[in-house]
């Protein structure tokens, strides 16, 4: 086997797969772009807010107690102040969504400030109606307006809402019954924000009056409700450690396993496609006049391995960045990251062998489907074992399945990434078992590959493949 030919084949294989627009955009640029664009997307969503509503809100306050508070709460200055405050929070989130340099943070901050200058919040005129106002009259007027103009006209005269507040809303009339409530009549198609603003303000004001009437200090209640909690710590052999939440315990092993699966599957899938293509193009005989089947297969498998590796590198860095940003890099250990790469190589070689064998045996992609079914089912197995393995990473089931190739790397990575990793000797043994399995898989694939490449005609079934293995 000549190394120069192998590397030549591998080079072409990598270039023809990974250096295409489709691959770069689909597999690399898209995920990276989505991450980078998050702040921009938040910004755009904010900018794309619907035009704010302008109009009148009638307060029919039967309690004759709440309406001044509501009036104050919905005054233009107070509404503006509240909206600006909400924007300030968004700015903070956007600036910290992904790790950024100070310059970029400032840039995004400036943009949001600019956007907040142009922000339009609902402009409301609150008219308290006396307790003896007939609500039906108000409703009739609103109906007339709706009939004439449809949606809000944008001037302060148009009635947006009528709030009907019960007489006992803020003060109990008799002790046995509870407090009363309120009802809102709305013009159709008002913005959610406007409706929320009105209702929240009414609710806040009624509550405010209840506190006052009961002689309770609202701030004091707030303080009583607020309990601060410092992050929980786990006491481990090495000392204190941030406790892992249920979510992170699941997410890290799951993400590691899926990452492994995606990377090895993508490489394998491309290998199948290019092999079938070379065969159906009949280009394979030309290539075979220049290199041996073994050189061809080795080159192709290595070429696609680099495709899978480049995916793995990009995605794992994205994951690491996310963890660093969340300041939870302690959740994943460097050894786990290294093991992801080790297990990728092992898992990839096994699946690539299967794909190379299938690809060389069939004449076109369509025929590959029936032979692919068992492989796809095999790829599903790690998903089925996800829950039992995560719950008990060192149970009999977890341990045994982590020693069965070719699903072994996927199970093992979940165990390693879990919060109860297996002993080191097991990891070592699993790597050894898989390395042996890789040799066997490659050896069998090579036999099928050699025979299959120049076989045209009836697509083979599994039995024929076994015959070829015996034959070669």
């Amino acid at each position, binding site marked *: 086997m000549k190394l120069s030919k192998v590397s*030549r084949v591998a080079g072409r294989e990598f270039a023809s797969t990974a250096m295409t627009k489709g691959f770069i955009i689909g597999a690399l640029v898209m995920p990276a772009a989505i991450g980078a664009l998050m702040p921009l997307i938040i910004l755009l969503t904010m900018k794309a807010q619907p035009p704010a509503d302008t109009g009148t809100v009638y307060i029919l306050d039967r309690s004759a107690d709440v309406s001044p508070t509501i009036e104050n709460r919905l005054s233009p200055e107070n509404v503006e102040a509240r909206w600006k405050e909400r924007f300030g929070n968004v700015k903070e989130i956007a600036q910290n969504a992904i790790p950024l340099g100070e310059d970029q943070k400032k840039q995004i901050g400036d943009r949001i400030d600019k956007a907040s200058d142009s922000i339009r919040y609902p402009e409301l005129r609150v008219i308290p109606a006396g307790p003896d106002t007939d609500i039906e009259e108000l409703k009739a007027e609103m109906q007339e307006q709706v009939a004439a103009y449809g949606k809000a006209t944008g001037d302060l005269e148009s009635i947006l809402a009528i709030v009907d507040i019960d007489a006992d809303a803020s003060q109990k009339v008799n002790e046995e019954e509870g407090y009363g409530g309120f009802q809102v009549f709305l013009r159709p198609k008002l913005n959610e924000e406007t409706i929320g603003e009105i209702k929240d303000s009414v609710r806040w004001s009624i509550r405010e009056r209840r506190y006052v009437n009961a002689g309770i200090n609202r701030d004091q209640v707030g303080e009583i409700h607020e309990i601060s909690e410092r992050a929980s710590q786990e006491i481990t052999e090495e000392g204190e450690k941030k406790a892992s939440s249920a979510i992170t315990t699941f997410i890290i092993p799951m993400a590691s396993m899926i990452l492994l699966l995606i990377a090895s599957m993508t490489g394998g899938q491309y290998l199948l496609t290019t092999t079938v293509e*070379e065969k159906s193009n009949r280009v394979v005989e*030309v*290539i075979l*006049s*220049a*290199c*041996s089947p073994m050189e061809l297969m080795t080159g192709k498998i290595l070429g696609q391995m680099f495709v899978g590796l480049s995916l793995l590198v990009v995605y794992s860095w994205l994951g690491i960045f996310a963890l660093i940003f969340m300041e939870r890099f302690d959740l994943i250990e460097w050894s786990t990251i290294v093991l992801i790469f080790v297990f990728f190589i092992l898992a990839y070689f096994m699946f690539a062998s299967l794909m190379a064998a299938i690809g060389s045996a069939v004449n076109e992609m369509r025929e590959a489907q029936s032979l692919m079914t068992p492989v796809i089912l095999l790829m599903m197995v790690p998903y089925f074992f996800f829950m039992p393995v995560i719950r008990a990473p060192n149970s009999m089931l977890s341990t045994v399945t982590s020693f069965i190739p070719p699903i072994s790397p996927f199970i093992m990575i979940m165990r390693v990434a879990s919060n109860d990793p297996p002993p080191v000797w097991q990891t070592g043994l699993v790597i050894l078992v898989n390395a042996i399995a890789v040799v066997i898989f490659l050896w069998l694939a090579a036999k099928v590959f050699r025979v299959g490449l*120049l076989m045209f005609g009836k697509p083979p079934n599994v039995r024929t493949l076994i015959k070829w293995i015996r034959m070669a």
Partner: protein
Amino acid sequence: MQGVRKTFGPKVAVEGIDLSIPEGAIYGFIGPNGAGKTTTIRMIMSILFPDRGELSVLGKKSAVESKDRIGYLPEERGIYKKMKVGSFLMHMGRLKGLDRSGLKPRVMEWLDRVDLAEVYKKKCEELSKGMQQKVQFVASVLHDPDLIILDEPFSGLDPVNMRLLRSLIDEEHGRGKTVIFSTHVMHQAEQNCDHIVMIHQGKKVLDDTLDDIRKRFDPRALHVDPIGGIDQADAVRRVEGVAHVTPIEGVLEVVMREGIDPQLAMRSLLESMPMNRVEIKRPTLEDVFIEIVTGGKRGEDAEQLRAELLADNQDAEEVEA
């Protein structure tokens, strides 16, 4: 090649072929479809391995060790459709062990020689079948191989390109390269080769120079064109020494009995009736082939085979046209 045999399951594709091809020769492999030509060539290329027998290529035990010195154009033409013509040829060149330096001018020069200079940057799938075939021919000779093996190189080419390819093959041969090509269209072999190997049902049935073949298969056949036309067949049949008379393409092919001197036979034919023309039939490879396959017997078998071959040739010629 010595006693080479190859089977596919129960089917014997090649049976006990002995063959040696001297360096610098131009050899034609002929035989009908399915005779075992491609299998033989694939074994020479070490793409297939014989079940029995031995072969050596360019002094090495197998072509595996000398692949870089062999140029091969397979019968099944293949090309990376999405690749640019230039990159495809560069890739093939580098696979064949050429250095990156000087490769591009070499590719350009070859493309120029086959009138395809303008396709360097085009994708292979944009080319016509014939153009693709020329690109593939370039791929097989790009690395200046000592041995060039071409499997059915002319199929699918128009007459102009066929002539171009023929002259390129002659040129390579003139530079001392060994050329082997196979064809099922016999007259193509007659035009190019100085040595013919005929394969039939997996066996070598002929291995000789074209001149020797012509001499050896000097037939006892004459082409006779009586003024009375082919209706005179019965009269001709009554002439002394005549064994068979078969009307072919407006003339009568007359086979003489064994031991009859063709000169004497011509004279007695001329005496028997007025003639436009009487001539000795120059044996074609087709005749030789039929002669060998039917064991020299003339009759229905031979006629049927000839009809098949004619149909084959016509197919080929239609494609060429």
